[in-house]
């Protein structure tokens, strides 16, 4: 008998060593559990058994042999901490399944799980040495099970990590790509590709808001129904992403269309578009992290589209400004470069352009040795249209003043021309005069221009004779002209309303009154001094306020 026992002990030992070798050679949890269970069933000649493991403090059935499907499903909820054998539900389960032995699988400090074994084939009870042997097997198994659990956990963590890396690289890739593209259609296409690839989506649509317009991009929902539903809601107020529950709660009509997620595309907190997504084909819900990702990608896309729009606008503006600079140069060149010298007249002139191309104009055209045409005009409006009209006017003036046509008739002709050339209510205020150096006279016509000031003996005479402004209608009533006999020390000041209406930062105007008082006080000075003083006074008054109008002035002093 002792020999027999020895032999048995030796066989047991060999089997244990072999068992240990096998289960420690693998990190595959299923393989290990399967092996443990089969070894036990073989050793004790049991017909059924199961192993359940501790997963997050719950004991879950992992592998079984000889247990019916029904009983597998009926495995009760037990927690790892409790004393299972006093759990009535578990006891009933063991009885129903005819499981006779329950043993914990424990590592040094944790309960890893339990093993349950059924009745032995020979109906005998488990003896004490059977149970000792079972514990030995389980002790050997514990480390292998724990190792493989750690590996599983690592695999899971790795996969999570892979998933995050994949998302990060998607974000990175899109941000790079969005920077390169020139068209917003490409940006939206890429955005869609990325989202449907990332989340397995077949129903989607992008909406972009521009003012009151809604641009519908690549709709895979019925557009009419969608727009109807969208227009019924305050879509610009969707400022945070909405998940399935929120969509269902807030916008049931949209939810019924199969919409599960609505994510705003925002710039500086303002919703400029929506990403609307249907369900994922794999029937998984969108997690918070998913929605966060969609929000990030959407922001990237809308910022890229908006940047491109702003960039294009800036380019156009820059181009326009360059053109305006050019126009300003051309316009400046249209003004007289040289002021002629006369026996009786001392002439000074100035034109200060505001930032824009303006509509002010003056000209000094010597007609012959003794006569000179001096003109001043202000075209309504600013910018290129005003500048064009002014150039047109100047060209005509250069021609007509040399034709020896009486000034009043010539003014009518200019008016007809300007009236034909303007369509949008533009007009010109215009004053011109022919200065005669021999007779010391000026013959003038004033077509609605600020009356030039004739300063004589401390008084002001306003030169107002003429007619209506140019360009309003063809000449029906002829213009009147007046000839003024000039006297020595007379000063004639021609100006545009940029002078009299110059504004300071409080929005107050310089006023005609102030101009007249100033002019009278300095009328004894030379024409150049008078001009400079008026300019200085106006600029001091304006205190550096940017003027919207040109300032133009011609001063003629009679010697």
């Amino acid at each position, binding site marked *: 008998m002792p020999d027999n026992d020895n032999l048995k002990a030796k066989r047991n030992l060999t089997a244990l060593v072999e068992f240990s070798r096998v289960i420690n050679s693998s990190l595959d949890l299923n393989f290990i559990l399967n092996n443990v269970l089969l070894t036990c069933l073989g050793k004790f000649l049991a017909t059924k058994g199961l192993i359940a493991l501790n997963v997050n403090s719950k004991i879950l059935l992992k592998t079984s042999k000889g247990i019916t499907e029904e009983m597998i499903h009926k495995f009760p909820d037990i927690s790892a901490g409790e004393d299972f054998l006093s759990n009535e539900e578990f006891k009933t389960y063991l009885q129903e399944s005819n499981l006779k032995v329950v043993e914990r699988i424990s590592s040094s400090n944790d309960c890893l799980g339990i093993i349950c074994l059924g009745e032995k084939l020979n109906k005998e009870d488990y003896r004490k040495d059977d149970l000792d042997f079972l514990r030995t097997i389980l002790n050997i198994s514990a480390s292998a099970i724990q190792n493989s659990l750690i590996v599983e956990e690592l695999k899971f963590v790795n996969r999570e990590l*892979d998933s995050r890396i994949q998302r990060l690289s998607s974000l990175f890739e899109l941000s790079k790509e969005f920077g*390169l593209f020139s068209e917003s259609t490409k940006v939206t296409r890429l955005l869609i*590709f990325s989202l449907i*690839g990332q*989340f397995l989506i*077949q129903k989607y649509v992008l909406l972009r808001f521009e003012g009151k317009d809604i641009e519908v991009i690549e709709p895979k929902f019925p557009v009419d129904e969608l727009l109807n539903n969208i227009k019924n809601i305050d879509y610009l107020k969707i400022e945070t992403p909405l998940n399935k529950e929120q969509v269902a709660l807030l916008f049931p009509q949209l939810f019924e269309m199969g919409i599960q997620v609505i994510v705003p595309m925002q710039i500086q907190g303002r919703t400029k578009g929506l990403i609307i997504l249907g369900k994922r084909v794999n029937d998984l819900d969108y997690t918070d992290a998913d929605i966060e990702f969609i929000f990030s990608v959407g922001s990237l896309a809308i910022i890229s589209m908006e940047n491109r729009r702003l960039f294009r606008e800036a380019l156009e503006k820059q181009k326009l400004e360059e053109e305006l600079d050019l126009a300003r140069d051309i316009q400046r060149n249209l003004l007289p470069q040289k002021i002629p010298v006369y026996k009786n007249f001392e002439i000074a002139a100035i034109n200060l352009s505001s930032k824009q191309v303006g509509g002010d104009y003056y000209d000094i055209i010597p007609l012959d040795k003794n006569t000179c045409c001096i003109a001043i005009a202000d075209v309504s409006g600013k910018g290129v249209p005003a500048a064009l009209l002014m150039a047109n006017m100047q060209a005509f003036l250069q021609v007509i003043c040399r034709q020896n046509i009486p000034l009043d008739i010539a003014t009518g002709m200019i008016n007809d021309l300007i009236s034909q050339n303007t369509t949008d209510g533009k007009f010109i205020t215009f004053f011109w005069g022919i200065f005669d150096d021999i007779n010391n006279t000026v013959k003038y016509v004033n077509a609605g221009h600020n009356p030039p000031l004739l300063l004589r003996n401390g008084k002001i005479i306003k030169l107002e004779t003429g007619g209506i402004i140019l360009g309003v209608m063809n000449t029906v009533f002829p213009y009147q002209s007046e000839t003024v006999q000039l006297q020595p020390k007379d000063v004639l000041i021609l100006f545009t309303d940029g002078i009299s209406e110059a504004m300071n930062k409080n929005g107050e105007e310089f006023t005609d009154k102030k101009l007249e008082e100033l002019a009278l006080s300095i009328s004894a000075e030379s024409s150049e001094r008078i001009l400079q003083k008026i300019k200085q006074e106006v600029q001091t008054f304006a205190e550096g306020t940017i003027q919207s109008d040109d300032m133009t002035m011609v001063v003629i002093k009679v010697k």
Partner: protein
Amino acid sequence: MAEFSTSVKDKGDVSIISLKGFLDAHTAPILETNFVELINKNRYKIVVDFNELAYISSAGLGVFMAFIEKIRENNGDIKLASMNDKVYNIFDLLGFPLLYEIFKSEDEAIKKFLEK
């Protein structure tokens, strides 16, 4: 810039698109064009050969999603073949094996079409 190219060949009813290089946001439109052309020719049985594909991003995967519905509506399918482990891992991560049949080789994928 990452290089990417495709070539398309027909074997009977089945068209095979072979991918090479990097399929990402930048190159996705190339593959998109391939699908559009095949669909325009009413060729809906498509095998995509990944043998020489080094990398795929979610924008690349999106191209497959964009056309699958239309293709399946026309009794066709997109079957995927010969992926390296890195590429397969991305498909797997995003759950594509649920929706697409993935084969070890182009021939196996073609054979699957012929069985039907």
